């Protein structure tokens, strides 16, 4: 039985979402005794990611999976993979300018649109929704989600109030941005965060301000903390758009294995991103999930 080495290139393992993706790939690979996963972490730095790719190619890997996180493109890295004749499978992020073999990921704009629809519906077409953004616009994942969400507000009576600062994708950032929003905005009916972590912080800020009754919360990702909050009876966590890194990671791994076995796969695969609410949350909540 032939040994197979697959490089798993992560832009960052900072956060639960990406950790979950990496873990999913490794978990699926564990079912094969002849598959070894070489996983790298670039700490969010595209130059280091390029170096990681170089180091992996140098170790004669058979295929490379790239989890490109929040960067738009990494031409030097993806070109090097192509030049080495190694199959390139991208998960989550579809890097531009890349001559890739296959991609498995979400449609962030569509997720945003789904949440947008949910908000408009729940507000009956009238109200104000605060938006908390993760970071600068070069992370187009977040921008796509927000644009998708706001696109569904057009023509309705729902108005978006965008927090001026960045919340850095984290709970503490979301908490601070929400606090400042609450100080300045008398009337808010909903909050949308570009990911769950930020809204988990924002939810606490809203509760502390005693406005949990008037403001409901929406976000994207479907991480465990958010699902638990949605499940909680009488809570104000309304919905999250599923973007399961676990699913994506597993799908990406199997796609890679298929390619190595000689299959010619679909080039781009968009995974479905249902909106998770009180009604369907039990289907998605997994006590044992890490993410």
């Amino acid at each position: 039985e032939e040994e197979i080495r697959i490089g798993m290139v992560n832009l960052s393992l900072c956060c639960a979402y990406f950790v979950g993706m990496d873990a999913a790939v490794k978990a699926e690979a564990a079912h094969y005794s002849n598959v070894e996963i070489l996983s790298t972490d670039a700490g969010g730095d595209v130059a280091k990611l390029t170096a990681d790719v170089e180091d992996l190619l140098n170790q004669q890997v058979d295929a490379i999976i790239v989890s490109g996180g929040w960067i738009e493109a990494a031409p030097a890295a993806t070109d090097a993979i192509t030049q080495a004749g190694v199959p390139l499978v991208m998960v989550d992020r579809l890097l531009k300018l890349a001559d890739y073999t296959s991609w498995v990921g979400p449609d962030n704009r569509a997720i945003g649109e789904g949440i947008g629809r949910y908000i408009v519906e729940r507000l009956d077409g009238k109200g104000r929704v605060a938006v908390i953004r993760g970071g600068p616009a070069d992370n187009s994942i977040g921008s796509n989600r927000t644009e998708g969400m706001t696109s569904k507000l057009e023509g309705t009576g729902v108005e978006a109030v965008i927090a001026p600062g960045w919340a850095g994708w984290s709970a503490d950032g979301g908490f601070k941005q929400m606090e400042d929003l609450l100080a300045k905005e008398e009337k808010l009916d909903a909050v949308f965060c570009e990911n769950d972590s930020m809204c988990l912080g924002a939810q606490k800020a809203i509760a502390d301000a005693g406005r949990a009754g008037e403001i409901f919360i929406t976000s994207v990702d479907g991480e465990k903390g958010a699902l638990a909050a949605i499940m909680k009876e009488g809570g104000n966590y309304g919905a999250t758009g599923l973007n399961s890194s676990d699913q994506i990671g597993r799908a990406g791994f199997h796609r890679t294995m298929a390619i190595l076995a000689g299959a010619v796969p679909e080039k781009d695969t968009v995974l479905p991103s249902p909106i998770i609410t009180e009604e369907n949350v039990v289907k998605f909540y997994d006590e044992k999930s890490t993410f």
Partner: protein
Amino acid sequence: MMRLAVRTSWLRLSRADMLFALAIVALVVFAAFASDAFLTQRNMVNISRQMVTNGFLSLGMLMVIRTGGIDLSVGSVLALAGMLAVGLQAQMPFPLAMAVAVAMGVVVGWLNGWLVARFDLQSFIVTLAMMGSLRGLTYVYADTPRYPEEAAFRSLIGGAFLGPVPVTFIVFAAAVPVVWFYLNHTVSGRAAFAIGVNKEAVRLAGVNVRRHLIFAYIACAVFAAIAGVLLSSRLGIAQPSVGIGYELDAIAAVVIGGGLLGGGGGTVLGVLGGVLALAVVDNVLNLFNVDSYYQQLLKGLIILVAVLARRRRL
């Protein structure tokens, strides 16, 4: 020329201090006039809560900076402390988990101080290495967020108020006089300051330099650990990625407040001014709806203006 200085037996303010205090007051007055939301009770609560993390880190940083050192590892200590305080609640009651988190701070601070003092290493590089290692260790401990098991952990601390005042702020406010007393009225605080000015002179006076240095690093790390515990309690979640870059804010607060990197300066009052200034600036920029790109740009400029306002010579 106008003499702008205050000198009493317990308070000494130079001209630069006064200018700086005036600048903060001006900022506050300006904000109050320009935004209705600024002087509301809600916003005061926000600012006071937002000051707590950087406040603790800056007080700790001050103690180390006065010895002539620097501690870059505070952000990582904060993250690990939060993860421990929350994560260990599965195994033990939350007060015990909190104690373990703070004990971790003691160990890390001791290690930092010991390496710096015993081997005469530069604190910058020692604590930089610690910052990286500890972050790695935090992820090894748990690479996904942890949620507190016990509701009291949040309701009694991070989410609690005493009258209108957040409990976390009260904890911070209580730490202020302790640090002031340590710096000005204890043997160790005075020795640490002297070490920052001229370590060799202190050694020649027969003082146990190592002990006082180590104490300062321990105090700094313990404060960072407390900040981490309070933050996770406030947020109701602990994340391994939290606190990256926090050390820079803490150093900025100390320097804006008149502290000298390399030793020989820095007061508790100055640090409070620095922490307050940074918190107000962040808050005001948000209240004015300044675009986040311009926020970054402006914040740098404001820091510059602040240090120019308190520079030693023209």
